[in-house]
């Protein structure tokens, strides 16, 4: 940036402590160790302590909702920024997972602790199968199809009056212990978050990122792109279905609203605000957006207008996101230099 009267430009340099701590084999002091681990510890401790500081049951439940949306946002971020597939229908995963676990629970009598994981894996398989036709094609088709499925499924259930129709499936068990319900999902979120972060640095994750950047080159190296995309979709949809299953067990009810627009839009907004491709950003975004949306609950569908406008603003004007901004501040400092 040059000002009119002086030739200056802004320069960004990595902080000394970042450079020193970057190569892990060169850690030499507690301070560097602290620099590296502090953000992660803050996140873990923060999330675990959050329910304890919440005033009352209502807000504790909000934390659970935050975690559920965070799982969805994680799956969106993973798909969009690490594989290149934009999923406009998070509600699809939530609905499939929710209904599956409801069926497993009420129909076959599985307790929630068993039904939820089964629903997640099974739901992941079903969603992947349904999305398979659009995987060899460009990202636009994936977006279109994921947009359509929740709308279509909701209408099907309503019209055919299967799976409980408009009333939904009731009488679903909730988790056996309150602390399990509260903390179980936080632990799940943390595990999946760190697990995904680990995944994208492995060779497998590298191939997926390469598919996003440059799929012709990956094809020319003898790798079947559709396999890797399908694997990524399976992982992401399983996470989404798990979120849906947990939500259904928390509310003890599964209905058409599990396909609601909220589940599709809020994760996207959270990811964009929090910082796409960081995988922590979406969690941060949810931490901000979900309480705000709870506060706006009285305003009806204004919520969705609100998310979409924020989403639009961020995408168009400032698409970095908070987390990336924060990372930059943490890792680099800026100063003006003369040219």
């Amino acid at each position, binding site marked *: 940036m040059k000002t009119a009267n002086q030739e200056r430009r802004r320069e960004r340099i990595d902080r000394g402590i970042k450079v020193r701590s970057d190569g892990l084999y060169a850690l030499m002091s507690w301070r560097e160790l602290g620099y590296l681990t502090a953000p992660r510890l803050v996140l873990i401790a923060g999330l675990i302590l959050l329910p304890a500081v919440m005033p009352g049951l209502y807000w504790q439940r909000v934390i659970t909702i935050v975690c559920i949306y965070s799982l969805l946002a994680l799956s969106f971020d993973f798909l969009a920024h690490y594989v290149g597939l934009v999923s406009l229908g998070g509600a699809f995963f939530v609905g499939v997972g929710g209904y599956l676990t409801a069926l497993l629970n009420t129909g076959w009598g599985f307790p929630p602790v068993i039904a939820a994981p089964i629903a997640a894996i099974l739901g992941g398989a079903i969603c992947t199968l349904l999305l398979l*036709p659009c995987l060899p094609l460009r990202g636009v088709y994936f977006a*279109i199809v994921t947009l*359509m499925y929740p709308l279509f499924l909701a209408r099907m259930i309503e019209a055919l009056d299967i799976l409980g129709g408009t009333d939904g499936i009731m009488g679903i068990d909730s988790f056996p212990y309150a602390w399990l319900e509260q903390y179980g999902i936080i632990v799940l979120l943390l595990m999946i978050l760190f697990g995904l972060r680990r995944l994208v640095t492995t060779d497998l994750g590298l191939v997926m990122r390469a598919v996003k950047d440059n799929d012709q080159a990956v094809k020319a190296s003898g790798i079947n792109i559709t396999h890797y995309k399908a694997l990524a979709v399976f992982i992401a949809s399983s996470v989404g279905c798990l979120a849906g299953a947990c939500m259904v067990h928390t509310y003890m009810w599964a209905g058409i609203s599990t396909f609601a627009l909220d589940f599709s839009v809020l994760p996207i907004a959270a990811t964009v605000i929090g910082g796409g491709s960081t995988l922590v950003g979406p969690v941060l975004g949810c931490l901000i957006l979900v309480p705000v949306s709870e506060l706006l609950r009285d305003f009806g569908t204004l919520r969705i207008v609100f998310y979409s406008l924020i989403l639009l603003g961020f995408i168009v004007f400032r698409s970095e996101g908070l987390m990336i901004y924060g990372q930059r501040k943490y890792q680099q400092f800026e100063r003006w230099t003369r040219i």
Partner: protein
Amino acid sequence: MDILIYGTINSVALALYALGFALVYGICRLPNFAHGALYVLSGFIAWTVIHTLNANLWVAVPVSLLATGVIGAVIYRLFLIRVRGMEISEIIASYAIALAILEGLRWGGFKGMTYTLPVFIEGSVVIGGISVDYQRLLTVVIGAALVAALWLFTHYTRVGLALRGMAQDERAALMLGIDSDLMAVVAMGLGSMLAAFAAVLLLPLGNIVVESGYNVLILAIAVCIVGGIGSWMGAVMAAFLIGFAQILTVVYLGSHYQMMVALLAIILTLILKPSGLFGQQKELEERV
């Protein structure tokens, strides 16, 4: 016989939905997820003009067309032009706009089944033993005329030719002095106006509900995918294919399954021939 008539009407309706979307995608390469929202918006604009300004339908229609066209162009110029070229961001941005418009309308009180637009001509006529409203007939006639007019426009006027040039090869068009940004804004405005056209023709046949925003979007996308991007012929044929399939399912299976036809059509096309019936896109994008 009635299948034939209703099938034709439905097909023309689908073609009308798809026109605006296909235009914008063909020229700006922008999948305009706000298409359905603009459709509904134009309906509500017309309704507002009629009911709050107590105006005549013949005033409301041009106002709505113009307003929607301008709104579409403005949306493009303010927001979508900044994310041009980044596919993911384009999709998310236009989807966000669609949501903002549709849910905003819903919050603004436009809920329920009480909003209707008057038809152009009252009454009906009997064709082949079936009584068909004039409005539906008018739709077919105007729809066909619109497609013909668009074809003429893009083949014989300067602006139309510029738009086609952009659709074929943007860089070449730029080199020939065609301002691609301006043309893109024009294309978007035109596409929005086409959505409004569809709205004023088809909304009088039912009510204006916000849900139809999503439906119209899905139907338009289905027609474009099945017909293939970039082909007039394909879009028209696809409209007829899906249109008749829908009517047949309504007659033989029940009206809930209508949307399923659209979805199945998309999935089948993606599995069997992703470039659509007459599409040329996939070939080009395989060029290394």
